[in-house]
């Protein structure tokens, strides 16, 4: 693998994503405005200081329990803040995976299901969750992608799509498997840069961008 070429490409994209992020208006995000402003500030300050973006998220060796929910955890991770977790017993994905598959086959949203299992989003990177990761990646790059390409993001539930992208971004920060980073590259090129009108959690766009920056910085 020619890491130098990948690094240059990642650096180019990193700057583009930062630019896109910095142009976002926090006031368009309602109650999440302060969070959006904080992300802009964190990434803007890092760029101004020439400081590297903090990217160190390692693949989860332990299944962890966060004191909070998935969406709050995503906000914290995208602000690059530390977050206390406790090791917790691993619940095998079997039954969850079957439910996920059933919803996917029935073309139903998986937002609630994913948000419940990945209250601590780094658990998505836990080694035994490989089958789930492959399923989410496949869904993003096949059926979801085709629907967006044939119609627009309005053809999908924006929150459902953005949560998947956030989880994939978390894993992309922790893995050397380039397929996950490239799923983010692909959607960055595919989706509009502005918040989505149908979204209940429009800030998920911002946390996705912030985590994407973090993933890119681990290669740049």
């Amino acid at each position: 693998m020619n890491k130098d070429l990948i690094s240059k490409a990642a650096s180019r994209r990193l700057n583009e994503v930062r630019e896109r992020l910095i142009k976002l208006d926090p006031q368009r995000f309602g109650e999440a405005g302060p969070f959006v402003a904080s992300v802009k500030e964190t990434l803007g300050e890092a760029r101004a200081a020439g400081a590297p973006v903090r990217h160190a998220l390692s693949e989860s060796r332990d299944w962890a329990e966060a004191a909070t929910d998935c969406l709050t955890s995503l906000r914290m991770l995208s602000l690059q803040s530390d977050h206390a977790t406790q090791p917790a017993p691993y619940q095998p994905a079997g039954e969850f995976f079957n439910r996920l598959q059933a919803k996917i086959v029935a073309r139903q949203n998986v937002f609630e299901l994913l948000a419940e299992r990945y209250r601590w989003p780094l658990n998505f990177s836990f080694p035994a969750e490989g089958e789930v990761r492959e399923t989410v990646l496949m869904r993003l790059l096949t059926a979801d992608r085709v629907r967006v390409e044939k119609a627009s993001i309005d053809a999908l539930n924006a929150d459902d799509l953005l949560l998947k992208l956030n989880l994939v971004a978390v894993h992309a920060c922790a893995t050397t498997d380039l397929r996950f980073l490239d799923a983010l590259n692909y959607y960055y090129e595919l989706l509009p840069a502005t918040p989505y009108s149908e979204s209940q959690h429009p800030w998920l766009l911002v946390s996705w961008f912030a985590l994407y920056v973090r993933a890119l910085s681990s290669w740049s």
Partner: protein
Amino acid sequence: MRIGILANSLPAALSIYREAQELPGTEVHVLLAPVSGNSKLSVHVARFVAKSGRRQSLSLIGRRALVHFRKPFDHPETIARLKELRLDVGLHKSGNIYRRETIACFQHGILNAHIGILPGYRGRSVVEWSLVQGDPTGISVFFLDEGIDTGKRIVLSETVDVSHCRNVAEAKQYLFDLDATFYRRALALLQQQPAFRSNDGSGRRYYVMSKLFQEVAQENLELLRRSRIAPDL
């Protein structure tokens, strides 16, 4: 060995037909069906008259090697006729994904010439992904199942140098155009009853690639080209 080339158009099947029929002990048929909906033989005839390979196409019809189906390969009407043909091996050249019932119409199964090295590279954009990750490009001929490049029996898997190609699209076309040669070699191996290599699922499934990484693939190909032209640089 009775062989059937599964195709949606005559010109697509011709080069494979030419290669396969040169193998001793083979009887080759071109199986023509629409991707979806209905098809008329007259449409295919009109299409190939306008294209190159007309003489070969006429010769093929003259030899009664052409079997035309009105319905797609997975339609019950087509499956019933495929069974009657009692074919040993199918060669995939259509735009279809086959169901189990269609695959089962061929005694040994349906071969696919995949432009990637299996078991490592399944799915789409595998030429690009091989280039990005600095792995060899190549072709694998394997027996299809209902999944995406998951058929367990690999007949032939070989690296193919694409460093002479100017861009990734040209490299892919170069590999696609080798399908007839690789099918012929795979059929020759099958006649010798080989031990199959296992497509054991150890690789990864790949998907469409972003423009950003397509540029990286192109840059990697450029480097390969330069090192081929001037190995010391």
